[in-house]
């Protein structure tokens, strides 16, 4: 294995029990899977458990992947999505579309790439807004904005229609935008008073 093989070739090798093919696939897809799980679950330990489980399923269910139906990354994100939903249900977090989901996000988990005080404040507000978004809206936003899936692929991962996905993502963006604008207005008022 050179690492230049396609996902399809590597998955065929995994079906034959080739562990080096499995390792190449881990290298190739782990980052996007762990980031997606983290953005849904909000904490590091659960993210690691879910990521391990996703790749365990890649190994045990490799023959079930149908390359003509979905890309490997789509299939893996779907597994990760389902595992995250199951995890949230088990741990008492609601996943109903219109109900906000409170995540266990700690300050040290999420970090901002910028260190200015204003940005930190904005990041914190954005984090808290993200954590209160309903699960379907958050998933839709994560898949399309961060993972770079098309609306059609994201809908397939979440097992919803494209229309439903677009409705979720639009509502998520509107909520976050309103919050940021409200935040900016409040800051402007404070500066004027000061």
């Amino acid at each position, binding site marked *: 294995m050179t690492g230049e093989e396609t996902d399809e070739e590597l998955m065929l090798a995994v079906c034959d029990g080739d562990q080096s093919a499995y390792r190449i696939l881990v290298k190739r897809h782990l980052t996007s899977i*762990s980031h997606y799980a983290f953005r849904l679950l909000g904490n590091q330990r659960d993210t690691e458990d879910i990521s391990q489980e996703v790749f365990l399923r890649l*190994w045990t269910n*490799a023959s079930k992947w149908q390359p003509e139906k979905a890309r490997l990354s789509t299939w893996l994100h779907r597994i990760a999505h389902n595992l995250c939903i199951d995890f949230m249900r088990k741990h008492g977090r609601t996943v109903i579309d219109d109900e906000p989901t409170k995540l266990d996000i700690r300050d040290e988990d*999420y970090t901002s790439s910028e260190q200015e005080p204003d940005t930190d404040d*904005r*990041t914190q507000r954005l984090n808290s807004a993200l954590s209160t978004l309903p699960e379907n809206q958050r998933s839709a936003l994560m898949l399309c904005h961060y993972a770079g899936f098309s609306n059609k692929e994201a809908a397939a991962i979440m097992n919803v229609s494209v229309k439903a996905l*677009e409705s979720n993502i639009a509502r998520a963006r509107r909520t976050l*935008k309103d919050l940021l604008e409200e935040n900016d207005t409040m800051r402007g008022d404070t500066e004027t008073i000061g």
Partner: protein
Amino acid sequence: MTLDDFKHVLDTYGSSRNSWPQEIQDDCAKLLTEDAQARALLQSQHRLDAALDSLTVPDFRDLEAHVMNQPLPPRDRALVDRLVEWLLPDSTSLSELWRPAMAACVPLVFGIVLGNYFSFGVVDETNGFENWDDELLMISFADVDQGQLEL
């Protein structure tokens, strides 16, 4: 395209023009050149996307090693694969030859069992004789000389 339509496009697809559907890109571009409110909406969407981009996730330093080195269980293989592997094992040991031999005999046994239970339209050629004794008796009658019977 109206301002509301454009707002919906931004909410659904984000601020990157490349992610907007191909068929409405020209309409969006036209609206942006004509309408200052549309430009303000795009600016606001840019700010949100930039804020989302500023959120980074932690560095999962040891995760890759954990995932790569986790013990891998036997895979759930398809039933057909498992059957083929059992019938045609990799080792060429003579002690395992009975498996393909048995598989080859299955159609033969099946044919015998089937033939034993069903006639498949084959006509019984005994012409109504119930058993061989009756048939032999009739043959013996045919051999008897007509003159002897009259006596």
